[in-house]
């Protein structure tokens, strides 16, 4: 897999050239929606944010036992986290027994969240299936399954989670991306909104009414079209406007600055909607380009930097509601222990998973570390998996999302002994 990075300034080019004549909504048969959603605090449910690192994040390049001779033998720095020097790894407490555990040198914001007790790490975690295909592995994890034979399942795990939760808010589920991820496949309660900039229909009231009528005639676009029209009507009212009536840029909490990055844009969309009190319960974010077959040294530095800083900003932005916010970060698989001869690593198996939130027992590493000796590796090549990814997700749901039916969210999965994350 490969990935071209997205131009960060492109969005600004997309601003509508016209002075946007923002529509005034309200008349014309727009249906009002009832807001009977309790506040998240009273409901016993967090806002659950899932961040999927697409392409296979190199967990062994992000958190590693730097003094393990097997680790040292398999890779040269800078593909290996090192103990000494200008770019030495960041020491952490409460790592797995027996080794000096270090985070990637650019993970300072993550180290801070960990040290503060908000961030938990689970290594050697993932999808217990032999696949090393990005697309197969992502499809299975997003459907909450572990076997190819169940790939026909027409719903994602977040779809089933939303279906098992009460709540009648306007927007229970969000994909902060242009498209719906497979985790929200088939959801009638979620919408994909990449950015709230330009979140408006350019037509007037009559045209809006016409659109509504055209989408009221049934057909496969009816549900999605009407959901989008309802969102336009309600969300647009709540969006701050600038001088010429267009949507004003999002202003985060005082003192918070998001770095310029596509990932920041997704996080800002989630933060803005979370603060809007429209019943948001689940938000899915993608962060791509982790498939570092080549050039891993500089690419992973950028990837980690642009994961850690925006995430830190997001968490600070939602500080007022951090006791009811849980963020999970996952990837489809880890990467090969031994690096290839083109400065990268190929598809591996076990990986690192993170959980961040005010209700999380952070500052610790959870699960079992299987070791990196050849006979401990999966297929004698890759980090083994000791914790099923659904164990982590299930524990989070059980404790933080009251009412979630874990057995329905992860059909066929039998949870093991709790890790103690929450």
């Amino acid at each position: 897999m490969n990935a071209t990075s997205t131009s960060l300034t492109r969005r600004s080019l997309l601003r509508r050239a016209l002075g946007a004549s923002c529509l005034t909504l309200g008349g014309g048969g727009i249906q009002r929606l009832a807001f009977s959603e309790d506040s998240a605090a009273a409901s016993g449910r967090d806002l659950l944010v899932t961040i999927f690192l697409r392409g296979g994040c190199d967990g062994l390049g992000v958190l590693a036992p730097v003094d393990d001779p097997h680790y040292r033998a398999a890779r040269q720095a800078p593909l290996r986290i090192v103990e000494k020097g200008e770019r030495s790894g960041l020491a952490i407490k409460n790592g797995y027994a027996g080794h000096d555990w270090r985070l990637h040198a650019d993970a300072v914001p993550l180290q801070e969240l960990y040290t503060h007790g908000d961030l938990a790490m689970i290594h050697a975690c993932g999808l217990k299936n032999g696949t090393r295909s990005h697309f197969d592995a992502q499809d299975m994890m997003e459907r909450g399954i572990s076997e190819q034979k169940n790939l026909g399942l027409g719903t994602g795990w977040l779809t089933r989670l939303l279906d098992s939760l009460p709540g009648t808010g306007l927007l229970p589920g969000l994909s902060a991306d242009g498209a719906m991820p497979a985790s929200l496949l088939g959801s009638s309660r979620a919408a994909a909104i990449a950015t709230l900039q330009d979140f408006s229909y350019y037509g007037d009231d009559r045209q809006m009414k016409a659109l509504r009528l055209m989408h009221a005639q049934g057909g496969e676009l009816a549900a999605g079209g009407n959901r989008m029209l309802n969102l336009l009507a309600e969300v647009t009212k709540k969006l701050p406007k600038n001088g010429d009536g267009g949507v004003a840029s999002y202003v985060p909490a005082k003192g918070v600055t998001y770095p310029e990055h596509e990932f920041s844009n997704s996080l800002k969309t989630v933060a803005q909607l979370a603060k809007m009190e429209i019943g948001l319960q689940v938000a899915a974010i993608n962060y791509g380009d982790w498939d570092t077959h080549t050039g891993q040294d500089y690419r992973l530095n950028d990837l980690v930097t642009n994961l850690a800083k925006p995430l830190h900003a997001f968490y600070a932005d939602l500080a007022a509601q951090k006791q009811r916010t849980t963020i999970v970060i996952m990837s489809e698989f880890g990467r090969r222990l031994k690096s290839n001869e083109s400065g990268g690593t190929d598809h591996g198996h076990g990986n690192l998973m993170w959980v961040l939130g005010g209700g999380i027992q952070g500052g610790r590493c959870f699960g079992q570390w299987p070791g990196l000796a050849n006979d401990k590796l999966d297929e004698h090549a890759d980090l083994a998996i000791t914790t099923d990814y659904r164990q982590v997700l299930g524990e989070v749901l059980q404790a933080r999302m009251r009412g979630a039916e874990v057995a329905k969210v992860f059909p066929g999965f039998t949870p093991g002994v709790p890790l103690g994350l929450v």
Partner: protein
Amino acid sequence: MIYYLDGVESRASPANENFARELFELHTLGVRNYLNHLHTKWRDVPGALEGKPAGYIDQDVYEAARAFTGWTVENGNEDDDGAKRPNTGKFMVREAWHDPYQKRVLATEFDSQRPALEDGMRVIDLVARHPATARHIAEKLCRRFVSDTPPEALVAKATTEFTAAFDAPDQIARVMKVILLGAEYRSAPATKFKRPLEFLASYLRVTGADFAPRMDVVYQLDEMGQRLFRWPTPTGHPDTKDYWQSGTFLLRRWNLPLNLRDDSWKGIASFHFLTLTPAQCTTAGQVLSFWSQRLLGQEVAEKSRAVLLQVLTEDDDAKAASDFSGDDKDRDIRIASCVALLAASPEFQYR
């Protein structure tokens, strides 16, 4: 692909597996024939001991990756030995990077010390001729051109043709003929959701617009989900409708004709709505009928007819029979608004 999937840097050893993996998974046998969750040794794959493995596993990927080591590009780089490559962009083989030892791919043995070109070409022949490849490619073509869920009979016919025409110089053209001339194609309902480029092109065509494309259009297609030439993964865009119908992609689709009407990207398209409307269409109802037929091939549904007439006349009391009056510029813009809505209707979204 050598650049895109990192072959350009792949050398012994360990090889870079990116190209070899996607060659199997995306370009030939397909992920449904990736059996690594069932088997970890080549000889355990059904059919392997007869030289006809039903699918592939990671061992095949590893071995194929070795076979391709040394396949690279004349990109002007300086190699370890100090020699500078020409900078032509052409394919080249760097024998010094090749892993020359014996290999086994899809249960077929490769002797040691064979040149890089031969090793790689053997892999390509093996995967190209594998029966799973015929089926995978035939199905992809049927999905692309006929339906998200193509009829099994058609896929089977296309698969047969792919195999029969394997050595023909126009193999794919022959397969396409089978697909496009088949009864299944002709009788298939129009269920393929237009991609943004198709949506834009069909809108410009049906409105007879003069079009001068610029990058603004590419950015707009991007906002509608189609990242021309820069889709981030080697899968290509999803070829089923769910993707194109999500949230803001739909919103951008509704807005696009309005942006064009308002000339939001100066000078990209100019329209001639009034000129194209026949002179005998003197009432709003006749104008709406003309444009409905033109975009949708049918009258607009009765339920939305009244409001479309209101848009056309900018009068909430409009009746179907009312005169379509006003100065030319005004009428032209009102037709544009109405046609923009017809283009946003569900019926216009299908190919």
